């Protein structure tokens, strides 16, 4: 098992390197550093101010290689004294530097943003798992009835609505018309936090519920038709017990393996939702940095997102290996 994990980690190294190179191209290859400076400085910044801005951030270096003839060549410096190598080194050492727009330390910004993001995504993740499993079991329980059909239609309906519509409807109905919850805002103080989190969590659950239920229903239906369930029924086990004890258990193996990939990315939060509900998490940080052309923060988010995604894939593979003995860990 350990061998397998280590091998998988090694496989990730070239992928991560590719991610670094692509991130560099996206943020330095396509955008001139001078333009980057201009987007941050006042509209009438002088050339001297731009040069100083670049100098203070060590951006006054050649792009790929420090060689005679290239722009911003620095005589006396080694060939690797370039933006490209500095960028790879920074990403490899998780030294994301400071935000261009606010000059705050990016790692601190990440630490501050992770908690609010997790406060929304983690409860929503687990609650929607529980709700979708319950709902799908209910549909399996009433399978092939009219209620099942209605439920399925309902799920398809839930699936078809984009998240922004849920946001607006929930905010309008629950926040504006019924006024059960604050329409916007955030707090970290105990029960006060729950007031603010209820709406965004509800929206996330609504957004997930339809597709998850459809998927889990399919998984459970397959299990229900399996031979061992028929054997159990033949031996006199009541359908409820067969459903809750055996079908649920076996179905959950598939479900957990499917959902575990999403776990690491929970920390990144949700883009639009956080923005609309005022959750000061990493999702809204990403969106704000895109709006303010804060390249260093967007770069850090992109890189961290890729790493977390890779981690999710790794977790999935390990889960498969753990729960299904048929997968040999060679």
């Amino acid at each position, binding site marked *: 098992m350990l061998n397998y994990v280590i091998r998988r980690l090694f496989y990730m190294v070239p992928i991560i390197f590719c991610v670094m190179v692509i991130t560099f191209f996206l943020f330095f290859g396509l955008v001139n550093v001078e333009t980057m400076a201009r*987007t941050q*400085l006042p509209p009438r910044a002088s050339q001297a*101010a731009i040069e100083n801005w670049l100098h*203070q951030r060590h951006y006054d270096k050649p792009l790929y290689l420090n060689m005679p003839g290239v722009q911003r060549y620095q005589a006396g410096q080694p060939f690797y004294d370039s933006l490209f190598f500095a960028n790879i080194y920074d990403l490899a050492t998780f030294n994301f530097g400071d935000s261009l727009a606010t000059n705050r330390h990016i790692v601190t910004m990440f630490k501050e943003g992770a908690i609010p993001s997790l406060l929304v995504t983690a409860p929503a993740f687990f609650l929607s798992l529980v709700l979708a499993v319950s709902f799908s079991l209910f549909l399996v329980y009433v399978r092939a009835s009219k209620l099942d059909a209605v439920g399925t239609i309902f799920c398809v309906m839930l699936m078809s609505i984009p998240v922004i519509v849920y946001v607006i409807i929930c*905010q309008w109905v629950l926040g504006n018309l019924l006024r059960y*919850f*604050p*329409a916007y805002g955030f707090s970290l103080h105990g029960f006060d936090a729950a007031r603010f989190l209820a709406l965004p969590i509800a929206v996330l659950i609504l957004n997930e519920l339809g597709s998850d239920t459809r998927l889990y229903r399919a998984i459970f239906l397959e299990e229900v038709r399996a031979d061992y369930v028929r054997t159990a029924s033949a031996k006199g086990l*009541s359908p409820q017990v067969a459903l809750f004890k055996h079908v649920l258990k076996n179905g959950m193996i598939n479900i957990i393996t499917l959902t575990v990939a999403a776990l690491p990315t929970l920390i990144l939060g949700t883009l639009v939702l956080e923005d609309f509900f005022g959750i*000061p998490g990493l999702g809204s940080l990403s969106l704000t940095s895109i709006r303010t052309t804060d390249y260093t923060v967007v770069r850090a988010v992109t890189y961290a997102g890729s790493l977390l995604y890779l981690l999710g894939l790794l977790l999935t593979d390990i889960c498969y290996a753990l729960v299904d003995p048929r997968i040999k860990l060679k």
Partner: protein
Amino acid sequence: MGRRSRDLSLLLVLLSLLLGLAGCDNNPNAAPWQAKHADGSPWVVSYRAFPEDPRTLDPQVAYDELSHAIIYLVYDTFLTYNPLKTDYELQPDLASELPVMETQPDGSLDYLCKIKPGTYFIDDPCFPDGKGRELTSADFYYTWQRMADPKTECPIVSNFSDFVKGLDESMAAAAKAGHFDYSAPFGAITVVDRYTFRINLKKPYPQLKYWLAFPFTTPVAREAVDYYDGKEHDGVVRDRFRVHPVGTGAFKLAEFKSQHFIRLVRNDRYNSLKFPTGGWDPAQEKALRPYAGHSLPIVDEIQYNIIREIIPSWVLFKQGWLDATTLTKDTFSAAMDANHQLNPDYQKRGMKVVKNVELMTWYFMFNMRDPVLGKNAKLRQAMSTVFDTQKENEIFYNGLYVMAQQFLPPGLFGYDPNFVNPYRQTSVEKAKQLLAEAGYPNGIDPKTGRPLQITLDVQAGSGTERQAAEYEQSQFEQLGIRIKIQENLFSAMLEKQLRGNFQFVLAGWSADYPDPENYFNLLYSKSIPPDGYNESFYSNPEYDKLFEQMSTMENSPQRLAIIQQMNQIITDQCVIAPLYNQVTLGLLQPWTQRVVVNGYVSLFGGPRYSVLNDELRNQERAKLNAKNYWPLIIGGILLAIVVGVGIRIGRKRDA
């Protein structure tokens, strides 16, 4: 029976859980810093919204509106604008009197500046014993040094170096040495005594007084800059100076949670400014008279919620949780009726509309180096004449914007309300005639025999921006010419404008300070990029001469005459085609008053003068936020029915 009661109780638990959550308060605002004053009088909080974080609270660095909004309140500027005047009259703030330009016996020029004694920095651990010390002229000396320090990254210091002595030398020395030597002689400021200093000038620079009303030149305490270095000391990581202001302003920064919330609390020691004693609109006499001569600030605390989206901020405003809001295109239709009047519902509530004509002009900017447009004034005149601005205003801006006839926006010295631009009176016929005179009869290029093609570069944006570009295209194409719309990313657009790699674009200029020089500089030949932002690449020796003359003059009839001449040149040659002056609309809750009469001036610490009726606010909020529980009960019952039916179906099949 047992199973059924278990189901029932489960439902009851669920329902009560929902009810419990729904029973909670929907107030999104944080609790006040203090419940009451020590003497039992109410502690009044003003609730406002910000669309995003201020970028920095370092006065020498900040240049964006949001950062400035906070900096004006926690720091104080040397001069400030009179809150009740619309003509940008400056008055002393930290100063004891307006600075005067002097000529020394040796012929050198300077501004003599005097500060009020008895102004104190707020208490802060950066000072010995944590007690704020008095502000002196040495603080101004240090602040100007700090501006010249490359590490500070003051973005406008090079604009000053043309006019203020000593900056270039100090900056060059710092660049050479790799650090700024604060003990070296510094020529920009001369400290005369504890409360008097001189700003030494290379040449007259009347615009300097506007810069003295800006945060860039606001004094900071060296103790604070050195103390808040963002590093670890004795196991504690200190803030960076840019998030930890230590000022002399009307408020202190109590909390700053990035992306979320800012809280300012009154500075009891503040005494630089008082509430005006008169001069307001007579209609406000009753509301404002009680505050005449009152010490500032009037409110005890300001809370800024960072609200990035329009819908939630509109919802919170409607519920009374925000004291004011800005109307956007999206909320305009919700707040106003078809005749652009406030909706009767909101009128009944007592809400007030606030209209601001901004110091901003939108215009078509022609590239004067372009071989087609740059050399042909008649062609530019034709394009300017054919364009129907009023229609565009109605379609895209709710008819709100002010139609512009000239480069300068209303309110600036030199703006002529009666000026009629002959090429901004929309007429397709006249435009066609001009086009024929330009050598393109019916829009046909005689060289190719095909319609003349011109490219309009626009920044890629939302659907509305694209629609506006299409409208503009259709307007010009009435002439028979072809307009190609080229969409660009922000960075590409910037690049093109700086390199002169375009034919014409839609441009907007928002005044940095209320002086016409700020506008006319955009067409000055020495401001052609990379030296400045003359992105029309206009170069006219006659205009340059006039500009050089007017830029160093104080406002006077002579200056006005020169400005009129310059305006005439711009108009005749049609270097730009002025379109609109931007207008913003705000809505005020019935419990607030508009005190500062001008939108631009209110950016300069306007909330210091904010007044509001707390009692009325509490009553209104209670009315606006009453709750209704029946939808919840109906929802619960429906859920119970569905579950019950399901259980029955299942059981029937199993039986």
